[in-house]
Each structure stands twice: as structure tokens, then as C-alpha cells.
């Protein structure tokens, strides 16, 4: 009697491998885009003793102060008075608790303090007294 042939499992893996590579490319590109939210035109001062930034606080407000003294949030230029209003509203949104709004001030190393002062005064107006000055702990390239 003829032995019954066992079915042999075969599968075309090409499509699956294609999708896997597509996903790898997507995630690698998405991660690098996420890291590029900082304005690269700002040259930060080297501060090897500063506290390393490990986790990003979703509440944090990053204020950029460019070489020419212009202020910006999320790469959108902003005036000091508008910055003050935004910060006041943000503090109000957090129940009037200024400590709930971490401020990160990213100033270009060559910018004069009088330009930084505008941003600091806007923070003071909103009742925010804790400021984190951004710096470079280690230069990557």
C-alpha cells in the first residue's frame, strides 16, 4: 500500500521581508526626525558638568534665543510680550502653578545677555522662577 504523502509546508517570505525592511526604514527615519526638533542654528555652550537630559518632560517649554536676539518657540519667531502671554496662559492651564511649567532656555553662546533678559523677564511675568539653561554636555560630531 502506498504511503500517503505528507503535505510539505512552503511559504513565500518575500512580501514579509519587504514589509520588515519598510518598517525598519520608517522607524529609523522617524526617530531621527524626532531628534531634529531642536533648532540647529543655535550653538549651545559646552557644559560638561551639567545635568544630562535623559527624559523629555511633555510639559516643558523650550525657548530659543538666536544669535540675532530673536526669540522662538518650536521654531516659530515670537516677541517677548507674546512669549509672556503664552507663558501666563500655560501657567493658568496648569492650575496657576508655575512650577508645573518647566522652562528650558536655549540661548546661542554668542548672544548678549540683554537679549536673554527679554525671555527671562517674560518668565518672571508669568511667575516662573525656575529656569533650565540648555547646554551641550558632549558634542556628538
Amino acid at each position, binding site marked *: 500500500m*502506498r*504511503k500517503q*504523502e*505528507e503535505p*510539505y509546508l*512552503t511559504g513565500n*517570505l518575500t512580501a514579509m*521581508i519587504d514589509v520588515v*525592511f519598510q518598517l*525598519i*526604514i520608517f522607524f*529609523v527615519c522617524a526617530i531621527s526626525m524626532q*531628534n531634529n526638533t531642536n533648532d540647529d542654528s543655535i550653538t*549651545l*555652550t559646552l*557644559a*560638561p*558638568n*551639567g*545635568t*544630562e*537630559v535623559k527624559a523629555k518632560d511633555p510639559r516643558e517649554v523650550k525657548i530659543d*534665543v538666536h544669535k540675532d536676539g530673536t526669540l522662538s518657540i518650536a521654531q516659530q519667531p515670537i516677541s517677548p510680550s507674546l512669549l509672556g502671554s503664552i507663558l501666563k496662559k500655560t501657567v493658568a492651564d496648569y492650575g496657576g502653578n508655575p512650577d508645573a511649567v518647566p522652562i*528650558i532656555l536655549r*540661548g*546661542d*553662546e*554668542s*548672544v*548678549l*545677555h*540683554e537679549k*536673554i*533678559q527679554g525671555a*527671562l*523677564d517674560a*518668565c*518672571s511675568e508669568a*511667575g*516662573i*522662577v*525656575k*529656569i*533650565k*539653561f*540648555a*547646554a*551641550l*554636555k*558632549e*558634542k*556628538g*560630531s
Partner: protein
Amino acid sequence: MARKRYKADHHPGELNLTAMIDVAFQLLSFFLLAIKPVDVFANLDAFRPSPEKTNVSTPSAPMIKIMVLPMNPGESGVYVLNDTPMTTPQMESRLKKYADTDPTQTILIMCAKRSTHKQLVELLDKCAKYKLTNLSVVSSAGI
């Protein structure tokens, strides 16, 4: 009569990996060339007292007052510590001394309008080095 054996009519598992390996190496080369080392960021904490609460002339507790003055190009930093002008290395040794005494004492950093942000950050970095945490940054009215 010899018994006829029926061999299973199937091929051993075959998968042409050449194309996949090609693509994998292409991707590897691309990312090796395209990737650049990321910068490590740091934060330096300081307080910015609101103007109405700042009273520099009559401090409630003994306070170290450091003034950051504008510097000429090429200079490393010009500071005035409790009315004594000093350079960055001198300042660093004084900060170390203060940290050894009491790292929680208040340091008031007064920045001149024409001083650069780099000077302030470098000073905050030196304070962070010696674990001096109670730092207040104010802006000087003059210069």
C-alpha cells in the same frame, strides 16, 4: 522482486537569500554613512527671582555675589566676586572653597547686559561642578 519505494515528491526548502542580503548590506551601508553621532544635552538649573522680590542691597542671608562683565574677544571670562575682579581659574578655586564650606549657600549671579550668554553658562557649569545648587540669575541694570 525488489519493492518499489516511493519517494516523497517535494523539494528541500529553498529560499533565495541573495536579494535580501543585497538589500540588507545596502541598508547597512546607507545608515553607517548617513548616521551622525548625537549631541548629549545638559540642563543647568537656576532661579530667576522676579524683579519685585529681588532686593540685592539688603540680602536676608549672607550671599555670594558674582557679576558677569562683558569681555573682549579672546578673553576667557571676566567676573567680579564680591567686588573683587577675577579670571575664570581664580573664580573656580573660590567656588570650590565655597562648596567645601556650604554647598547650599545662595549665589547671586548678576549679568551685565553686554556680557555673552556663554559666560553665564560657563559660570553655571562651574557651579554645577562643585554642586552649588542655590543659584539666582539677575540682570544688571547698567553696562
